[in-house]
């Protein structure tokens, strides 16, 4: 697969024509600027083409500008499958089911905390468990864990971890319908039980940020964001529970794909008809993991708020919470018809043009790489037409973890952050280079594409001053 096989369809749209790979049912579309083309890997184009071969796919196999090679689906991939004739694929969701981002806006301003950033960061670091295999402070019973799987963030709010208003500011109100804890394996429950309320490791983080620039005043006002305001961004997912659910169902789907006679170009693309028993079971388990992740982020927000209140006498409200690894049943226009489809977003964020709590396009939270800006965007009508109401999810990697580790040292990376007046806390200094800004595409370039293309509107730019790296 080479770049030469791509056809330019617009300033920011490149098409992977049907026929590029045998069995493609629809063309692929990759959203990129000329600047970002140099990062596009042949493997990622192949993965966009492979996804286009899956039964029931609608319109296009899409890739957002933060695209890079994943396993099965590319990261940054979006694909919608007919709800009755299409498939569900765990590889189109990923192992970290409902990995996502949450933003809290505090009543503090940058100048109030600048001199106390170390204390602030240390308090947050102590309040929120992070790192490899990190465990939460709760000891849940089996019944409580099942409640988490069934009810998501609602369970957390009912148990005292937050405010009922928080639920209105979560994608899907922090609870995906159709969750079925009985479809979650005992092993997934065992892995998930001790970890609820923990950040995890890898690219998961908590950042203290401030609003550096506002582009859309009205939307920013509605989202309660103003210049210089201090915000807290959280990036985490469904921990071991989600990882094991994906592992379990990939295994089930290997055999089931053969049973339903689905030809796969890559084992990691294993899928089954959405309406089959295996498909329904996976959706029940996947939704349970999604609910676990919303609960997880809700609980961490509670501890963030405690710190903000106790250390500064300030408060923090939830701006929004988005999922960027998920499959959801949604209605979209396909040709003249409105159709129910399972939209798979793997490293892509929902960007609907209407959010019931704000009355305008939904807030979309896009974290940059460690030490670079993050963005708050807004969903648009164009996204509904061009990308099944989806946009990018972050900067997107360009350097492998191996390459990042061999070309950068943790000392150099932390020194670089220090020069930008960013403080970092982690239990895991040796892994810092893996998440260095150099390992990622420039976030500003990614945002330029989604904004120029019109699949999102830029509302605000947030700059970090403190980072907790998981």
């Amino acid at each position, binding site marked *: 697969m080479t770049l030469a096989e791509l056809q330019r369809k617009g300033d920011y749209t490149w098409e992977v024509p049907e026929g590029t790979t045998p069995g493609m049912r629809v063309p692929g579309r990759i959203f990129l600027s000329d600047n970002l083309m140099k990062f596009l890997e042949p493997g990622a184009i192949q993965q966009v083409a492979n996804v286009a071969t899956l039964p029931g796919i609608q319109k296009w196999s899409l890739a957002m500008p933060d695209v890079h090679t994943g*396993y099965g689906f590319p990261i940054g991939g979006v694909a919608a499958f007919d709800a009755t004739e299409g498939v569900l694929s765990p590889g189109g969701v990923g192992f970290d089911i409902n990995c996502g981002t949450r933003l809290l806006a505090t009543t503090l301003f940058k100048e109030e905390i600048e001199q106390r950033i170390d204390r602030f960061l240390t308090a947050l670091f102590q309040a929120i468990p992070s790192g490899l295999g990190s465990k939460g402070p709760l000891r849940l019973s089996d019944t409580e864990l099942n409640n988490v799987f069934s009810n998501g963030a609602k369970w957390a709010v009912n148990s005292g971890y937050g405010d009922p208003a928080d639920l209105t500011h979560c994608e899907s109100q922090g609870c995906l319908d159709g969750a079925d804890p009985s479809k979650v394996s005992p092993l997934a429950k065992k892995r998930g039980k001790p970890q609820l309320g923990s950040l995890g*490791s*890898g690219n998961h983080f908590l950042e203290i940020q401030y609003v550096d620039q506002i582009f859309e005043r009205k939307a920013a006002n509605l989202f309660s964001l103003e210049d210089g305001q201090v915000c807290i961004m959280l990036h985490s997912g469904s921990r071991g529970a989600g990882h094991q659910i994906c592992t379990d169902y990939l295994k089930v789907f290997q055999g089931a794909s053969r049973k339903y006679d689905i030809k796969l170009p890559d084992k990691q693309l*294993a899928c089954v008809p959405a309406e089959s028993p295996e498909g329904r079971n996976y959706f029940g388990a996947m939704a349970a993991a999604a609910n676990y992740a919303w609960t997880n982020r809700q609980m961490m927000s509670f501890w963030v708020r405690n710190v903000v209140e106790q250390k500064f006498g300030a408060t923090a409200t939830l701006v929004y919470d988005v999922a960027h690894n998920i499959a959801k049943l949604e209605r979209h226009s396909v040709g003249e018809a409105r159709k129910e489809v399972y939209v798979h977003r793997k490293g892509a964020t929902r960007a609907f043009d209407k959010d019931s709590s704000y009355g305008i396009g939904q807030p979309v939270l896009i974290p940059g790489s460690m030490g670079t800006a993050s963005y708050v965007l807004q969903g648009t009508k164009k996204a509904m037409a061009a990308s099944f109401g989806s946009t990018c999810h972050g900067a997107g990697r360009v350097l492998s973890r191996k390459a990042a580790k061999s070309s950068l040292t943790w000392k150099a990376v932390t020194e670089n952050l220090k020069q930008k007046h960013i403080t970092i806390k982690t239990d*895991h200094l*040796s892994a810092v280079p893996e998440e260095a800004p150099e390992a990622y595409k420039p976030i500003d370039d990614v945002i330029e594409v989604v904004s120029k293309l019109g699949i999102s509107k830029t509302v605000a730019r947030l700059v970090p001053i403190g980072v907790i790296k998981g």
Partner: protein
Amino acid sequence: MLKYEFVEHTADLTFKACGRDLNRVFENAAEALESTLVMLEDVALRETTTIEMTSDSWEDLLYDWLTELLVTFEVNRFAVKKCIVNVVGLSLSAECWGERIDPNRHTLNTEVKAVTYHNLQIKKNNVYHAEITLDV
């Protein structure tokens, strides 16, 4: 012949494990996984645990084996430093030596979310080669 080596993969961590027979490939793949999770130099051979399983193909067996080691690490907090694997047909039995993780003595490396099927393959030329991608 290297026991294992890590190769470039943008999103995740891919390694190749080699061995003169399947047993060695499985043992070397286990070491590659465990070394990703923890600094193995600090792990002592204090306890043993036994793992047994049967799968549908060699590749599935390797996927299940590594997944079991990952779960053993995460749930039981047990790091495996050495193992003796015996593959017969599509069944595996293994004796694993290592110890429980002590945050004061052990240096944890990278959290592995899962073993993937991405390009998962076992090939035999002169020796056996396996390629495995971990989601991290």
